[in-house]
């Protein structure tokens, strides 16, 4: 079985000279398909930086990243783009949905760019039902609450059926009942659909769904016991 994500000796330094900030220190991380990895840390600890590097959006100052055995370092911009489109689903903290597209059209846009291997209509409907947004399909993002938008953004990230799901604070706008549902959804994706799910968050409510858990503090990633 190939490792979904393998990050070795990652360092990230922002700025130069006096303004230099060392955000990630020798980070090593591995995620296997079929597991949900949870990375918990306070604001400013380097979670988002970690995720952008894992997702190939940012080249780290040093260290290497391999996704599905493809080394980012050896990949062109185009190949990385393709990788993001096909293999990685981003669920972002700022769930910017295109304001002028209805929920339905947000998915249609993916169809326009990625013609094959997206969720089937039934699968999408099941997902939307699971997320409790199946009756919002013709609404525009501005007509939705923050939590509803967040759930649409999750569905949007899952629609291309990526093998890896990277989520940045996916539960920020959700109430506890929804957190349970979304946590369950992510763990089902890992366990039933064999995806590698990586969630960075400061939300301790997601602990219960993790297969492996890390803490990140001032850019230092350490393995944590699940039953914290």
């Amino acid at each position, binding site marked *: 079985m190939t490792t979904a994500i393998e990050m070795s000796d990652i360092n990230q330094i922002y700025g130069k000279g006096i303004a230099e900030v060392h955000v990630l220190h020798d980070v090593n991380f591995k995620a296997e398909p079929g597991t949900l990895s949870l990375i918990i840390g306070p604001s400013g600890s380097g979670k988002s930086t970690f*995720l952008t590097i894992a997702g190939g959006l940012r080249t780290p100052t040093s260290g290497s990243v391999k996704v599905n055995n493809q080394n980012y370092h050896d990949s062109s911009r185009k190949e990385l783009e393709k990788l993001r489109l096909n293999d990685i689903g*981003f669920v972002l903290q700022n769930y910017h949905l*295109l304001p*002028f597209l209805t929920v339905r059209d947000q998915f249609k846009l993916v169809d326009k760019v990625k013609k094959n291997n997206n969720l089937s209509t039934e699968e999408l409907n099941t997902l939307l039902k699971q997320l409790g947004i199946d009756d919002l399909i013709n609404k525009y993002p501005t007509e939705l609450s923050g939590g509803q938008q967040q759930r649409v953004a999750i569905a949007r990230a899952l629609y291309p059926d990526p093998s890896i799901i990277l989520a940045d604070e996916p539960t920020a706008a959700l109430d506890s009942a929804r957190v349970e549902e979304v946590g369950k959804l992510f763990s089902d994706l890992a366990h039933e659909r064999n995806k590698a799910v990586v969630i960075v968050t400061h939300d301790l409510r997601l602990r219960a769904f993790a297969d492996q858990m890390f803490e990140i503090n001032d850019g230092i990633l350490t393995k944590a016991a699940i039953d914290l």
Partner: protein
Amino acid sequence: MFLALKEIKREKLRYSLIIGMIVLISYLIFILTSLALGLARQNTDAINSWNVNTVVLNQDANVNLSQSLITDKQVKDQGLTGKDALIGQISVVAKEGQHDKISSTFLGIDNNQFIAKNLKLTSGHKMKKSHEVVVDDKFEQSGYKLNDKIKLNNDDVAYKIVGFTHNAKLNIAPVIYGSLSDWRTLKHALPQTEASAIVSKTKKLDVSTPLKAYTTNAFIEKLPGYSAQNMTFSLMIGFLMVISLIVIAIFLYILTIQKLPNYAVLRAQGIPSRVLVWSTIAQSLILVLGGVIIGAILTTITAFTMPAAVPMAFDIPALAAVGAGLMVTALLGGLLPIRSVIKVDPVSVIGG
């Protein structure tokens, strides 16, 4: 196209405002172009109707028809062929009892030469003897009729309108065709004066001093005010083009800047920037195409309702060229926002 159309559909008000702006600009450009063409034609209609290639003037006339005089000896030395014709020009004010005075150009011509022979009348007949004139239909529009007797300048002699002709204008003034001898009288010229100019269908005509041959184009360029007028219109149209470029660029830029965070997310999700760039181009094209089409419809309506006296020429090829120019302008206007679309950084939306 998908994104472009969906957005326009969602933001109807915003985009109708931009289209409205482009409609006004393109309408203005179309009307100005028609006016420029119309006025240009009123400068040259008469000359164009003769189909001549060369205009021979006195070399001291500074390429000005009304300053040029040619003597009978010079004409004889030149030796006219069937392709040559004499014209005697003088500016006159025509009046007739109850009608408005009309500032006109009297052109004396020889009945046996091609200008008189080829003269196309809309009514009446050609002049057969002196004191008979054929006039431009501007006179008809102003209420003059066949057999009206007009007086020219302060002369007491009455000239009888025996025919009307269409599109006979020189330097904006309607033309009164009469005989060369009448012209000589009006001009108070010496008896040996034969005409103001020789016009010829021959391309390269040999003449001897003091005569000088000009191509018809060179002659037209030197018509009083003609070049200045064309330049003014070209400048105005050029400025409007630039303004529309700026309007489109600014609007698209603002609209695009607002969408950059969304575009960054799409880029993070692996949507190629080609899709976003094409959407921006498609939008500017749709906006301008929409605006230009509505502008063209308004122009057509205007063309049909405009009174004949307004000097406008709705020339389809010219207007199509101007419309195409606007499309190019729109594409250029789209370049600025496209730059920021290409440069959008997907990382910028992740964090916080």
